[in-house]
């Protein structure tokens, strides 16, 4: 598997003038291979969306970014604005959560797709238009030729999201970044959109970073999962492994919080106590320790754990797990 995206020691700070900057994303490293679907899962304050924006270089003052992001061998932070714009239009595809605000209401859907295509390659308007209509048909818009002349408000939420997908893949990108693409949709619409996304990604061999707070959605779509908490990645692994055998206490707690149809109704849910971390008041040592059922008072409070490889393709940032696995002398996973 060749690596397509390589993120190394990415950090995003928010400058607040005189006071100490907020550390929204801290020392995040991961890779996405060609054709691989990575799920970036976390709750509010986890830094998952900022990570995606940092990868696309869409963050400006007061955000300060450090670290390296390389796409297909090319370091994105060493490009100038023009070169980066070209990368963004030609090699990256982006799908946002709210299709209503990401589509321009005064241009027709066709025009917007054509614009995206023409920004990234030299192609005649007529050819771009044909491609736009084909794309709309591919994402399931019936009567694509006529509908290309409709405005975004003439589509329902689910259809608008499909249009976004069409726009995102119109330039044949290598990497698709989907930030909570189905959070604002009904569950039946979500099923349709995710099915469409799966099909398109399969057909084109696209790599995807799916950002979501919904473990269910991630579990059905992704190959690998990275769990984020308080600006850091706390666990990495294949989707099957992480869900069936979560190692980090936060991952375990997150999985337990998911309300499923099989839940025992006679018992209370296994909830994590406390509140999600506040950037201006991050705990010392391990960010999760105030809410962790197994935190110990010495290491967890003072030492910030780093991601350690526990077994092949499985990393966890937890000193307790690390100690346990060293004691056992074997891998736990």
């Amino acid at each position, binding site marked *: 598997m060749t690596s397509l995206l390589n993120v190394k020691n990415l950090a995003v700070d928010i400058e*607040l003038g005189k006071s100490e900057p907020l550390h929204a994303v801290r020392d995040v490293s991961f890779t996405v291979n060609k054709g691989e679907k990575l799920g970036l899962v976390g709750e509010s304050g986890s830094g998952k969306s900022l990570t995606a924006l940092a990868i696309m270089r869409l963050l400006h003052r007061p955000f300060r970014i450090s670290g390296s992001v390389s796409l297909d061998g090319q370091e994105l932070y060493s490009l100038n604005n023009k070169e980066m714009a070209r990368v963004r239009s030609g090699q990256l595809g982006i799908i946002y959560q709210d299709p209503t605000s990401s589509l321009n209401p005064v241009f027709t859907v066709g025009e917007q797709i054509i614009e995206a295509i023409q920004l990234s390659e030299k192609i005649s308007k007529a050819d771009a238009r044909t491609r736009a209509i084909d794309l709309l048909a591919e994402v399931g818009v019936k009567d694509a030729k006529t509908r290309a002349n409709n405005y975004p408000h003439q589509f329902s939420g689910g259809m608008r999201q499909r249009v976004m997908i069409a726009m995102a893949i119109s330039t044949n990108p290598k990497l698709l970044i989907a930030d909570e693409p189905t959070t604002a949709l009904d569950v039946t619409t979500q099923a349709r959109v995710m099915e469409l996304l799966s099909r398109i990604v399969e057909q084109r061999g696209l790599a995807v970073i799916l950002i979501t707070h919904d473990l269910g959605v991630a579990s059905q779509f992704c190959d690998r999962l990275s769990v984020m908490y308080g600006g850091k990645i706390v666990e990495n692994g294949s989707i099957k492994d992480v869900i069936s055998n979560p190692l980090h206490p936060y991952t375990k707690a997150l999985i337990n919080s998911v309300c499923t149809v099989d839940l025992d109704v006679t018992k209370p849910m296994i909830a994590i106590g406390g509140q999600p971390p506040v950037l201006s008041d991050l705990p010392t040592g391990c960010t999760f320790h105030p809410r962790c059922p197994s935190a110990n008072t010495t290491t967890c409070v003072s030492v910030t754990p780093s991601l350690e490889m526990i077994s092949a393709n499985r990393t966890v940032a937890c000193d307790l797990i690390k100690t346990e696995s060293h004691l056992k002398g074997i891998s736990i996973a």
Partner: protein
Amino acid sequence: MSTVKTGGTDLFRRVLKRPLGKISFTFISILFISAIFANFAAPSDPNELDTANIFSKPSLEHLFGADDLGRDVLSRVMHGGRISLTIALFASAIAMIIGVLWGFLAAQIGGWVDEVLMRTVDALLSIPIILLALILVAALGTNVAVLSIIIGTILSPATARLARSAVIGELQLDYSQAATVVGASRLRILFSEVLPNTAPVLMARAVICVADTIIIEASLSFVGLGINPPDASWGSLTRTGYEQLFNGYWLVLAPGLVILLAIWSFNTLSDQILEALDPRSGK
């Protein structure tokens, strides 16, 4: 998740942190202080004649020169500020009181009452302000009190419109519905729940009213329908200065500059209040 703090003193502090907020507030303070303490702060008595220095250029003795009777222009401008700013404050207060009641009533009652009240606003706003002011002044006369009332009334329709849309916006938010659900009366919701949230926007409007009043009063006095001698306002001083322009440019300079400064400062302060309300990152 961050929500903007909209507390009163907090807003004040945020406005003052911004560079333009600092500058405009400083100028306004200077204007008010020099007006209030004109008796002490002014270099000379505004009515003191200095016949030796008629039409004298700006000098150390008379920083902005002297007028046709040798009176110190700067002192006259500072005293003139008393009248101009008094009218400005009263008119603004009147505009706010009438406008807020008007707008709140329209927003709360709705229906045909809202229609009638708002169409009246539209009608009044379609008449040019200065024209309206001229007509009313011609009819009712000019002194500080009457001018304040006239200008305040003229500025109230725009205030009403603003107050109404602010209230309607707040009434659509969940917390207003929550107050209804809890059983609060409509009056209570309006004044106890909604009003505090509309206060910042209304405050910005009040500041603009002050600026607008200064312009209107200055314009009226300039055409001779506002404050007349022996009283001096910035507008009337500009008029006399203009009449005697050939005798010295400085006669118009001081009052004109002060009017410019005042209008700029109040408009900027209002802008800064509105911007400070807007949740921008890091601010």
